[in-house]
């Protein structure tokens, strides 16, 4: 075996190995590389941050974030736990932020006497926060005019 042939063989072998390695990388189930008979390690549960100062908005029209836990808060036809503090009737006593005036209008801009049904389900837009890193890198910067 001469020198060229040996080099060619080494190159081919390494390529073949490389491809199998590549395939192994590509074919990857959601379980990752963990064999079926082993338990996948999961990420630790993220904890909702409890009780902090109101969080500044990052852009105009952003629904303000919830700066406290809301576990067990129920919102149904009969009552809305959030409103027991955030309604106009209760915000002063509770020291909470009152709900926006915009929440009293229906989609035809008729102003109603109570919160509009379309704005009743707070957690559709307002959410609590966990202390976690962004899933993807991004270059977003909040607008400065509404920051304080």
């Amino acid at each position, binding site marked *: 075996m001469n020198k060229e042939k040996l080099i060619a063989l080494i190159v081919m072998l390494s390529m073949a190995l490389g491809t199998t390695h590549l395939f192994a990388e590509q074919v990857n189930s959601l379980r990752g590389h963990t064999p079926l008979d082993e338990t996948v390690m999961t990420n630790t549960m993220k904890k909702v941050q409890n009780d902090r100062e109101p969080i500044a908005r990052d852009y105009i029209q952003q629904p303000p974030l919830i700066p406290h836990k809301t576990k067990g808060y129920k919102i149904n036809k009969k*009552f809305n*736990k959030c409103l027991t503090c955030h309604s106009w009737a209760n915000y002063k006593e509770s020291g909470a932020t009152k709900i926006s005036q915009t929440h009293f209008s229906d989609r035809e801009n008729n102003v109603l006497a109570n919160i509009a049904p379309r704005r009743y389900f707070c957690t559709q837009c307002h959410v609590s926060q966990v202390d976690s890193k962004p899933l993807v890198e991004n270059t977003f910067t909040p607008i400065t005019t509404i920051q304080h």
Partner: protein
Amino acid sequence: MNKIKQLLTNLWEVLKKPTAKYSLGTLLVGGFVAGIIFWGGFNTAMEMTNSEEFCISCHEMRENVYEEYKDTVHYSNRTGVRATCPDCHVPKEWTYKVIRKIKATNELYHKALGTIDTPEKFEAKRLHLARNVWKEMKATDSRECRNCHDFESMDYTEQGRRGMNQHQKGLDSGMTCIDCHKGIAHSLPAMYEVDPSTAVGN
């Protein structure tokens, strides 16, 4: 009627007559032992009705309030310390406990009547029932809450920003737990009758 009267008179005669057969010691010791047994028996029977198991043996409790309670912090929490039905709804002190148990005969009466035997009937009565409990807790200065939640041992600095302020303000002005903490263990009633600002519609 006369027969019963006769019977009672005879019984009274027997009870009045001093015994010639048993010594005073036997009677005393016997009476003492019987007293312990009856007293113990009474309390044991009462304690049997003082368990979650007993409470949810009625479907009215099991299917409505118990299910709601299972979602709350008094059932499931970090450390696994639980407050069961009687912890909040039956006083710990004996006298108050007996009074509560006597009042509970009204609940038996309504059980027999079937006042809340369907979810619909229960829902219709919920506000009324809730107000009964709120009124009682207000009247006792939330005594059953305070069996565990002792203000003296409450470290405000360990509390959240909001709780810290609210607790000091509330307790200083003579408010009690139930004034704010309504609906913490069970679903609130339809609030448009209590506070329309917390429900949809008007």
